[in-house]
């Protein structure tokens, strides 16, 4: 008997909880989208757009690695129904899924630094890349990045290469990393468009990077 009472109480509580949404809020929400029935100083369509933009940004940031658990504003990731929160039926734990959304660690330690080059003398690695392999480079017989490639683009290509590329040891402390960026990033020596980048890292210094 006590169990039945608890069940009925629960049903009533559930009805009460959803009641405003089922019977009254629907029209209010519809009204709120009309400037005639919603005289307030806050534009709900604009607000909705802002929220949607934030949501889209979050989705873009995680690039499909997981789904937002509790809608806009949440950074908890699960593989369940979008907006479903950490409900039963979702796979794995929160910790596991958050890890999936993070980029892989770099396979080797490497950083941009200054070096002395035969062409151009002392300059940083990124300066060398644009001096010799930039879209406007005047050098012949070298690979070149596509027109419009920015420093950030090259930095991202190199970072991805260090995380996901194929690393070939090249003597003590030296590595050559090859990585397919998945889109055309420039042309090789022959002038044929390519999506691959090669990065030379002797002793932890990113010496050069170019399409190949």
């Amino acid at each position, binding site marked *: 008997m006590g169990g039945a009472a608890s069940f009925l109480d629960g049903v009533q509580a559930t009805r009460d909880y959803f009641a405003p949404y089922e019977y009254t809020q629907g029209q209010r929400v519809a009204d709120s989208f009309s400037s005639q029935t919603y005289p307030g100083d806050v534009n709900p369509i604009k607000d909705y757009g802002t929220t949607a933009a934030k949501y889209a940004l979050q989705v873009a940031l995680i690039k499909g690695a997981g789904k937002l658990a509790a809608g806009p504003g949440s950074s908890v990731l699960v593989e369940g129904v979008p907006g479903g929160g950490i409900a039963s039926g979702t796979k794995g734990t929160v910790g596991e899924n958050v890890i999936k959304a993070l980029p892989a660690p770099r396979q080797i330690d490497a950083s941009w630094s200054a070096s002395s080059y*035969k*062409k151009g003398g002392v300059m940083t690695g990124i300066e060398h890349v644009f001096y010799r392999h930039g879209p406007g480079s005047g050098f012949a*017989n070298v690979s070149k990045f596509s027109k419009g490639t920015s420093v950030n683009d090259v930095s991202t290509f190199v970072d991805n290469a260090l995380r996901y590329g194929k690393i070939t040891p090249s003597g003590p402390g030296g590595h050559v990393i090859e990585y397919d960026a998945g889109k055309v990033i420039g042309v*090789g*020596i022959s002038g044929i468009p390519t999506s691959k980048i090669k990065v*030379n890292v*002797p002793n932890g210094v990113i*010496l050069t990077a170019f399409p*190949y």
Partner: protein
Amino acid sequence: MISGGTIMERFIIHELDDSIRSILRGALDERKLSRSVLCREFEFNCFGVALDFEKGIVRVQDILCPGEDDFIDVPIQDFIVICALE
């Protein structure tokens, strides 16, 4: 400088490809057609290659980070065989 291995090994492994072979073959063909072609120099992504037809040698040089041991001289005929330019 790309560490490790001889300069020639590193050139072959990390630089030499079909497009570079084509460029080098073109220089060798020029020399075949005219004895007035005395030398040809190329600077690729990481290495420079200088063909000295008078001396009969090829200098392969690490051009990224030059130092004392940044080049090697190889007889042209050996270079042709090693790089499969025939």
